[in-house]
């Protein structure tokens, strides 16, 4: 009887210690998962919509590179740099714009990720600036009268070294499709606050800002990017 009790005691201790040990290990594991999966680093990428549009649309060519850096749990600083050439071939105007642009700002990730995931539904703000050239090739004259046949007037003029500045609101989604590789799609709403207006003409297209509007300072754009995260540290 005494021997049986002693044996049971030892078995109990063995099991208990086993259980204790297992529980402890598991706790450590959970801690590891939380800390190691918040990756901080530099994410660099390219816009994939622009090269595709360049292939199919002979009036457009452009590329854009982008980067962001994670500052805190939700905040990222972000930049985009690109080059656009756009030909405006309309029935009454033939013009072309080309130039480069830079956008600097930040993104706020509003999405609550599950442990181990790095997706984002984000909103962002940018300051955008572009330097560009515009060429006017030809135009028609609006008479509202059909007595004299109207043809296009070819009167090439070029306006060089124009600049424009705008503020931009971005709304987008980023998904990690492979480890450290992200796909993103975003919509951009822009409001132009400064521009050089060419004499006796107007800016029809501003690289980075896209098509302008005669009746307001609004512009829209979208981005479709692929980017790679270079992890620097984990938190």
């Amino acid at each position: 009887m005494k021997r049986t009790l002693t044996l049971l005691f030892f078995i109990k201790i063995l099991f208990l210690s086993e259980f204790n040990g297992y529980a402890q290990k598991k706790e450590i594991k959970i801690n590891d998962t939380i800390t190691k999966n918040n990756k901080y680093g530099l994410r660099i990428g390219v816009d994939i919509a622009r090269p595709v549009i360049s292939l199919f649309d002979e009036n457009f060519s452009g590329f854009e590179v982008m980067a962001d850096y994670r500052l805190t749990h939700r905040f990222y600083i972000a930049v985009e740099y690109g080059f656009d050439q756009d030909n405006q071939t309309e029935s009454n105007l033939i013009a072309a714009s080309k130039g480069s642009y830079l956008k600097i700002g930040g993104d706020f990730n509003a999405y609550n990720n599950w442990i181990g995931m790095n997706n984002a539904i984000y909103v962002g703000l940018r300051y955008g600036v572009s330097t560009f050239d515009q060429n006017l090739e030809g135009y028609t004259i609006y008479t509202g009268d059909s007595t004299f046949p109207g043809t296009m007037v070819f009167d090439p003029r070029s306006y060089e070294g124009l600049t424009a500045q705008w503020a931009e609101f971005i709304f987008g989604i980023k998904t990690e499709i492979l480890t450290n590789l992200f796909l993103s799609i975003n919509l951009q709403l822009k409001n132009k606050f400064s521009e050089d207006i060419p004499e006796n003409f107007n800016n029809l297209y501003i690289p980075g800002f896209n098509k302008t509007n005669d009746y307001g300072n609004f512009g829209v754009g979208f981005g479709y990017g692929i980017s790679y995260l270079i992890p620097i540290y984990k938190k």
Partner: protein
Amino acid sequence: MFKKIIFSVLLIALSVSCTRDDICTEETPKTPLLIINFKSKINPLLAKEVPDLTVTTIINDENVDLYKSVTRDSIAIPLNTLADTTDYLLIRGNTTNTDGNTDSITFTYQRDNIYINRACAFKTIYKNLITQLEIEENNWINEIEVNTLIIENEENTHVTIFH
């Protein structure tokens, strides 16, 4: 919260994509017509109608009538925006039965093309207008006076013809 943001973003994107600047509206200031008033050669302050007036120009060797046998004291006619001169024939007393009296005027001017907007492109304004009446045996026009040097709208009379 996010549904609201997505909705408002889509709404703005839709409203922006359908912009007014794709259509050149009628109200947009366009290339002005030349406004001509007819006045009496006896009393230069009095408007005087031209009976059965026909206004014709020649385009590609074809006569184009802008007015046909009308009786009025003012006309508005276009100037060619692709040339520095436009010729007009002003025929007085032109009816189905009578040819009337034809006077020929050459308008010479300088052109400036002014940008309007994306949909309408450009318009032309005219400067330094000169009129030249072809002198013949039986001119019904007595005198032509240019009232303004720059023709940029249709608010005022540009040319007065006394007859």
